[in-house]
Each structure stands twice: as C-alpha cells, then as structure tokens.
C-alpha cells in the first residue's frame, strides 16, 4: 500500500515536472504593429489551450537577423524564431532543432502544408521549421485594361507566349513614350527566379552543385530581359528610377501597368487606391507552372530548454485554430492549407472589391523549391551583382550567368 502511494506520488511529481510546471517561451518576429498584434493574439490562444505554456512575443523592428544572430552568439537565443529563406544558415550551424523525430512522435500530419514550403524548410532531409505564413507570388491585373482590349484574364494555363501577346496588346505608346506598360517586374529574386523555374531551370542540382548557366536559365532570363528591351512591354530599371524610384507595385497602383507579379501584401496597399479595378490570379508556366512562396516558418532554437513545450507551441501555432488570427486580422496568407482553402480565408473582407482569393490555394501545388541552402544570401548576392549588369544591358545573358556560375563555384567551397 505504502509503496503504491510512493509510486503514485513519484509519478505525479514527474508529471508536474514535465508538464504542470509553467513554461515560459520567447518568440522573435519581424514586421509592423499589426504583425505584433497577431502574434500576441496567437500566443494568447496557445496559452488558453496549454495553460502551462506562456509565449512571450518579442518584436524586432528592423535589422532582424543582426539582432537574432547577436542574441544566439551571446548565449541568449530565443526559444522560437520566425525565419524565412535564410533558415538553413542557422540550421547548418547547429542552431535549430531538427523536427523530424518530434513530428513523428506527435503524429503531426505534414500534409497540412504545401510540399514546396516543406522543401524550403528542410535541409539534408531534416525539417527545421513549420511553415507559418505563406502568400504565393501571384499576378495582379487591371481588369479595365483587359476588358478594353477584349482579352481574357490571366490564368494558370498561360504560357510565356500568352503573357507576351497580352502584354503587347496592353502596352500603350504615345510616339516613343510608353504611357502604359503591359507587364512590370524588376530585379528582385522572386521575379526572375520564378521565370527560371517555369522553364525547368534550377540554381543548384540535387547534389548542391551550381547549375546556373544552363540553356533553360539562359532562355528564361533572355525572355525576361526581352520583355523590357526587345518588346518594350515592361519598364527597365532606368524607367522605374525615372518614375520616382518606384517598383511594380506603385506602377500598378498608378494604373500604368496592366499586370505585375507581387505578394499578398499588395492587397492591403491597394485599398488606398479604391478607383482601381483589379483582381489576382495564379502565375503562368512555360514547361511547368512555378511561383515563389513568400512567407516564413517557425523554428525552435537548439538552445531552447523546453523543446517539448516549444514543439507543442509551434504545432498549435501552425494549426487551423492557431492560425485563425492571421486571417481575422487580415494579416497574411496562412500556411495551413485547410484554413487557406476555407471560406474563412476566401471570404474574409480582404478588399473592398471581391477578389479571387482562390489564387493562393491554386498556387499551393506550384510553389517552387527555392535553394534555401546555408549560402542563400551569397547566392542572391552573386545573382544580384551580375544580373544588375544584365538588366542594364551591360552584359549579355550568357556572360552574366557564366559569371554567376563561376562565382557560385567559388562561394560554395
């Protein structure tokens, strides 16, 4: 009898140790006031579900990676981190907890996320973050301009030829001067990288070796550049600078381009321009359909002392319920596919005019697996250096990609 009591006491004690003891976790995130509000609401929901877990939200307003890196290097790592494309710079240096074991232990069904996102957050077969926010890059188009020209709206079935012919018909010139462009993009990586992927091109092969100067990539960048210089249906960098250093988003808002590729955030911005009649659609393809997902994942620091609680936290935060505040506050597209495809997301009052929110769900199966290797930032730098020459026509596409190839072979040593 006594033994039994002691045993049960020990059991209770152990249980309290592992669970009942209140756990305080810190989560770091970037962004603005709204982002902060949403993370705090989600932390509250988490606390309601697991009263022993308190999630403290630390908002880092600017220079996020510098602060987070300093915290980790200084031995004060946050427990949970919002991370994006540079996640594996941390994971490859042993700073993030590999999640595979816990995913199977908890029976977490990963099919609630898109495969492309899971690929992005995996490195050498190990998952290091659960997808949290994910708005695919989509095409925004001006309905009035399409109606005027009697053109069908863009859709997934488009090939580059369709894009080009629509853009040509939509471009308006007064003499030499273009007063309205058919299409607009720029030198930011999601733009040119998705064109490369649409043509079946890659940056790194399966073994992580750079494969930049392939015919597929050359053809893609050539087409991308031709839209500007050969066909004159998209603005060059100089044109953008001359219009007040704007980007495609501003050009679209000004009604000076019929199409642009951008992310979910632009829905909110366009609310400031109510006179514009626009809608969204998933991107087109050439050999395959491909787009970039713009979002972030939640990772657990390997220095976290309560890994179990931290996993419960990110599991909940990426669940249907845990992601609700993202939609309720009109913050972003949730990575949870169930919520992304639910009426809650689709019918939320994102915009004063009804828009095709299905564009995000429809993009889920075309999200490309971007090369989020530890050297991600250096890959971007190499591309940025030489593409800036290519996009100014200082260098041929072949020469530019050849140089990037060489540079990557040097960088990925």
């Amino acid at each position: 009898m006594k033994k039994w009591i002691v045993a049960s006491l020990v059991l209770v004690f152990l249980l309290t140790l592992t669970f009942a003891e209140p756990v305080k976790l810190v989560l770091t995130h970037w962004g603005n006031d709204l982002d902060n509000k949403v993370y705090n609401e989600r932390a509250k929901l988490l606390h309601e579900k697991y009263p022993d877990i308190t999630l403290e939200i630390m908002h880092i307003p600017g220079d996020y990676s510098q602060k987070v890196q300093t915290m980790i290097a200084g031995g004060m790592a946050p427990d949970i981190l919002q991370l994006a494309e540079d996640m594996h710079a941390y994971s490859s240096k042993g700073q993030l907890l590999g999640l595979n074991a816990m995913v199977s232990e908890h029976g977490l069904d990963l099919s609630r996320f898109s495969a492309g996102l899971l690929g992005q957050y995996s490195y050498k077969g190990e998952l290091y973050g659960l997808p949290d926010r994910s708005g695919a890059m989509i095409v925004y188009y001006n309905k009035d301009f399409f109606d005027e020209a009697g053109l069908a709206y863009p859709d997934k079935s488009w090939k580059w030829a369709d894009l080009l012919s629509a853009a040509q018909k939509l471009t308006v010139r007064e003499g030499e001067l273009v007063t309205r462009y058919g299409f607009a993009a720029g030198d930011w990586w999601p733009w040119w990288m998705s064109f490369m992927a649409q043509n079946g091109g890659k940056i790194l092969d399966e073994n992580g070796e750079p494969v930049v100067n392939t015919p597929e990539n050359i053809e893609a960048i050539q087409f991308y550049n031709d839209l500007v210089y050969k066909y004159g249906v998209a603005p060059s960098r100089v044109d953008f600078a001359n219009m007040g250093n704007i980007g495609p988003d501003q050009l679209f808002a000004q009604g000076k381009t019929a199409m642009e590729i951008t992310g979910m955030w632009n829905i909110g911005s366009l609310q400031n321009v109510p006179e514009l009649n626009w809608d969204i659609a998933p991107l087109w393809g050439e050999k395959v359909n491909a787009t970039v997902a713009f979002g972030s994942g939640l990772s657990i620091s390997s220095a976290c002392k309560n890994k179990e609680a931290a996993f419960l936290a990110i599991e909940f935060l990426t669940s249907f319920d845990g992601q609700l505040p993202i939609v309720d506050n009109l913050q972003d597209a949730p990575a949870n596919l169930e919520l992304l495809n639910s009426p809650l997301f689709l019918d939320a009052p994102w915009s004063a005019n009804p828009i095709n929110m299905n564009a995000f769900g429809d993009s889920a199966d075309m999200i490309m697996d971007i090369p989020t290797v530890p050297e991600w930032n250096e890959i971007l730098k190499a591309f940025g250096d030489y593409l800036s020459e290519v996009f100014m026509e200082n260098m041929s596409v072949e020469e530019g990609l050849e140089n990037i190839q060489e540079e990557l072979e040097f960088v990925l040593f």
Partner: protein
Amino acid sequence: MGRRLSGSRRKEALAFYLCIAPWLFGFLVFTLGPMAFSLYFSFTDWNMFQKPNFVGFKNYVRLFTRDRIFPKALWNTFFYAGISVPLSLFLATLLSGLLNRKLRGLRIFRTIFYLPALIPAAAMSMVFIWMLAPDTGLINRFLGVFGVDGPAWLLDRNAVKPALIIMSLWGVGNNILLLLAGMQGIPQQLYEAARLDGAGRRQAFLHITIPMISPILFFNLVMGMIGGLQTFTQVYIMTDGGPNNASMMMVPYLFHHAFDSYRMGYASSIAWVLFLIILGMTLLVFRSSSLWVFYESEVRR
C-alpha cells in the same frame, strides 16, 4: 623610458594618469576585450555560432589573393573618402567664413546649414534616390539647364560613387559647426592689427583665420578620414554596394560577410586590414601636422 623624472614632472605625470583614468578604465573594461577578440577571430573560421577553429593567415591570404570583391571595395573606399572628405572640408571652410560675419538671420542660416546632418539616414536616402533619378531627378534636371546630360547616377557603375560623394556634401554642416566655433574664438585684435597693416578681407582670411583654425581643420580632417573610410549607412541603404559592387566599400563588405554569410572570422580580417590602413593614414597626418597646424600655446613655449 627609464629616465628619471624630476619630482614636479612625476607629479604632473601622476595628474595626467588621473585625468585619463576614466577613459583608461573604460578602454580596458569595455573596448580592449572586444577588440582583442575580433583580432583573434580574424585568424579563425568563426561562423558566429560554433566554436572557432584557428586557421592562421588563411583569411588574410584569401582576402588579398582570391577575393574578387575586396580590391574593388578597397579602391571604392579610398575613392569615396579621398574625394568627399577634403571636398567637404574645403566647402565647410568657405561657408564658415561666410557665416562668420555680422549678418542678420545668422542663426537661421546656421540652423539650415546644419539641418541635413540631422535627418535620419533612411529618410535622407529616400529623398536622394529621388533627386538622383536618371532623367527626371532634380540633379539631372539642374544639369540639363547647362546642357549637361547627367548620368543614371545610382544605376551607372561609373557614376554611383560620385553620386554618393554629392550626397555627402549635404552633411557639410557637421564640419561647419566646429570650424565656425573655432573662427568665433579668434581674437578680434588680430584682425584689427591686420587691418592697420593694410590687409584686405581675403588676406586676413588666408593669413589669420586659416592658421588660427588649423587645429580644428586638423581635427576635422582626421575625424573625416576615420569616418569616411568606415562609410556604411549610405551604401547599405541606397545601393547595397551595387551596381555590381561599383559602390561596395570596406565596412558594407565586412558587414555582408559577417551577417549575411556568417563568416565572422573573415569579416574580422577585413576589419583589421581596414584598421591598419586607417591607423597608418592617421599617423601620416599626425606626422605632417607640425608643418601646417598652428598651436598658439606651443609656439609660445
């Protein structure tokens, strides 16, 4: 060293060390350690997170033999600092001369001259990107008045450094503040004596004002050099070193290695090369100072 100091000299030396004690303490506690660590890291492969491994001079060798961008960054830094620092100092001297007179509204003018130096970098950069636009920007439209077809500035690899230099001239107020303070301190008797000798305003400026403010010019030159060679924010915000590293400078480059590429060891080696360059140049300027800096107290001694 080793010489015996007389009693009064010893007392003076003691007073010296007591005076500099606050700095000495702060230096030993807060600065020496981090500096020594960064020097040590420059001989390692530290990635900021994991234990560093000692690699000898590998980082330095790579820097000078295999790094494609480093020579560019080095040249750009010298080009930028070498032109913007003296140019800004020259303009500041002229403007201070203009402001050092009995004119109405001087306080307003001085405030306006200092104003650009107070605007946060992010806002200033946005404004300048707009002003430097290829065809529609204010600066090229101004040049157009004289029939000059201005370059694409920030998008043109040959014009991006001059663009940054032009922008730096708006910071002239920082130099003016001190030069003007120095000019206001020049005893009026000196000018009166010069006038009696028949010297004009220009002569007085050249032969009285300039020598009398030479210690401040010297200060501004040294500080401008130390700061100019460490230029970071403008490049980081406005061009990120582009196009194709045409405006890449030493500190943005080491920042890229430290916080984008996680090569803190390599970044530290860049920092120490930069340190040695600045130290060497500062010593040179100090050596030369006896030729052109005029210290009233030392002359009289």
